[in-house]
């Protein structure tokens, strides 16, 4: 089973079309293996993206270099997955 240790989910808030375009550029960078849960579209819509552990710093650096605001929605995805697995095992036993 694939693990997601250290994967973070970031919420990115854009202020203008230019920032949206920057995120669309980020979206096209395949080597970062980003999983966009909510894709960049217009400044009104926040973007949620899962970032693999080894690319977290690169993505944050990209955002910070352009002054794009972001927050961490999920600190470590594997922790949430482990909780889900635990819940399923508990429910199975029940």
């Amino acid at each position, binding site marked *: 089973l*694939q693990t*997601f240790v250290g994967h973070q989910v970031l919420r990115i808030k854009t202020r203008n079309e230019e920032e949206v375009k920057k995120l669309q550029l980020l979206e096209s960078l395949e080597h970062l293996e980003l999983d966009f849960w909510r894709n960049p579209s217009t400044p009104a*819509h926040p973007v949620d993206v899962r970032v693999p552990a080894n690319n977290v710093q690169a993505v944050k650096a990209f955002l910070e270099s352009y002054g794009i605001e972001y927050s961490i929605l*999920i600190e470590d995805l594997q922790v949430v997955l482990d*909780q*889900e697995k635990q*819940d*399923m095992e508990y*429910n199975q036993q029940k």
Partner: protein
Amino acid sequence: DRSSNSFNFGAYHTLDEIYAELDHLASQYSNIVSKLQIGESYEKRPLYVLKFSTGGSNRPAIWLDAGIHSREWVTQASAIWIAKKIATDYGQDPSITSLLNKMDIFLLTVSNPDGYVFTHTTNRMWRKTRSKNKGSVCFGVDPNRNWDAGFGGPGASKNPCSDSYHGPSANSEVEVRSVVNFIKNHGNVRAFLTLHSYSQLLMYPYGYKCTEPADYAELDALGRAAASSIRSLYGTTFTVGSICTTIYQASGGSIDWSYDNGIKYSFAFELRDTGNYGFLLPASQIIPTAEETWLGLKKIMEHVRDSPY
């Protein structure tokens, strides 16, 4: 044991467990529920639809599906709760009783079974089908970019490794083709409702273009009424609008196909949450999610029942 009633609707289940419960529902409520197979997935898993019907032939029908994006687990879980709800409300709730006396409901609880199994066994974050892509090391197609509605246009990727890969051609995915064939052969589907998660949205066409559908005013008003019903239970707020204005331009989506094929009442739901759990909504929220979703669906279904076209 088909007579037992031990299925826990407040938990996530494997495909086998869900399929066993479909059998159980069809057996327990055989007066109105039957199970149909409309095709099989790429990896040869059956695609089962529950048919809710009080009789008659080729009655007007409502189509409801869940789980086309496999990782959106709360949708498959909500769908099975909704199946039970429809079955138990018939004969008890006057609204559902009158609906089923006039129309049939078809419910596809797991639209993408291969992907769903893959989320349980290999990669919890898997979204696509599991078909092989010729000439690529990457698997799968986004089945909600594979419908024949602006296929290959904006908001879909031509890269097989992308999570929004549209596939080699419209309907290339057998999971999509099976639904298309079923609905076309039926010929009398009046509403097409699809469940996704997350981000709490209720959307109508279009996604492949940013123009209003001909029935914009009615769909918008109905969507708002449904969102209001959803909010009435636990205060969950849904944003209502077209796919293009609410999220982003996305081509090859199912409700665009259904609308362009004459199914006026075409809606996509994005269920709870607002991002804190992503596709990992805690199991304790399955039943509340299903309950509130049911109120929204019911509002739309009642309108469909009362507004023949």
